[in-house]
């Protein structure tokens, strides 16, 4: 099967409705289809990276736990916007999953390499 470079651009916070989880499902399916997947957490999407989340209190899943499955599906290119983290006072040393921090210039370069971009 054709392999394309797919970027998932996650800008939504984790618990405002089902959007974030549904978008992560698409990424997992892209992994199953053996695509070259990268994920960029930007703007409010960086809230998905906060540790110690507990979705059970809402009667649902914990988004950071679902995200931790990405490497099992072959998705290891995980990036976060360093500016989005700092403007939200999120400690980049203490995140729920291992991501590479990118400044804007590196995000632009990442985007340039993609064939398809999907968002949440």
């Amino acid at each position: 099967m054709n392999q394309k470079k797919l970027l998932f651009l996650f800008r939504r916070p984790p618990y405002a409705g089902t959007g974030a989880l549904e978008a992560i499902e698409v990424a997992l399916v892209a992994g199953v289809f053996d695509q070259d997947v990268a994920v960029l957490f930007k703007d409010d999407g960086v809230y998905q990276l906060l540790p110690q989340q507990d979705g059970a209190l809402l009667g649902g899943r914990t988004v950071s736990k679902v995200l931790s499955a990405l490497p099992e599906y072959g998705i290891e290119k995980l990036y976060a916007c360093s500016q989005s983290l700092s403007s939200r006072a999120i400690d980049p040393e203490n995140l729920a999953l291992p991501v590479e921090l990118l400044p804007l210039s590196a995000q632009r370069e990442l985007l340039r390499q993609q064939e398809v971009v999907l968002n949440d």
Partner: protein
Amino acid sequence: MATLHIVNRPLALESCLELAAADDPVLLIEDGVYAALLPQSRELLMLDADAQVRGVKERLQAGVISIGYAEFVDLAAEHSPLVSWN
């Protein structure tokens, strides 16, 4: 190939412009056309029909170019990837 950015609300434009290269077209659609009322640092494209619906056409800033759906399709065919900002 350059990227086409599609912005459907004004608050998303700032994030879009962080990642838009100088030669990437940025197209305002739906509520995104309200951004055309404010001075911008670069040229923007705007979907004419959405501007007309919202009464934005008469109060445009300079540097905003109005296009129709046919040109929107051409832009989408000529650019890759296509990135939506909301």
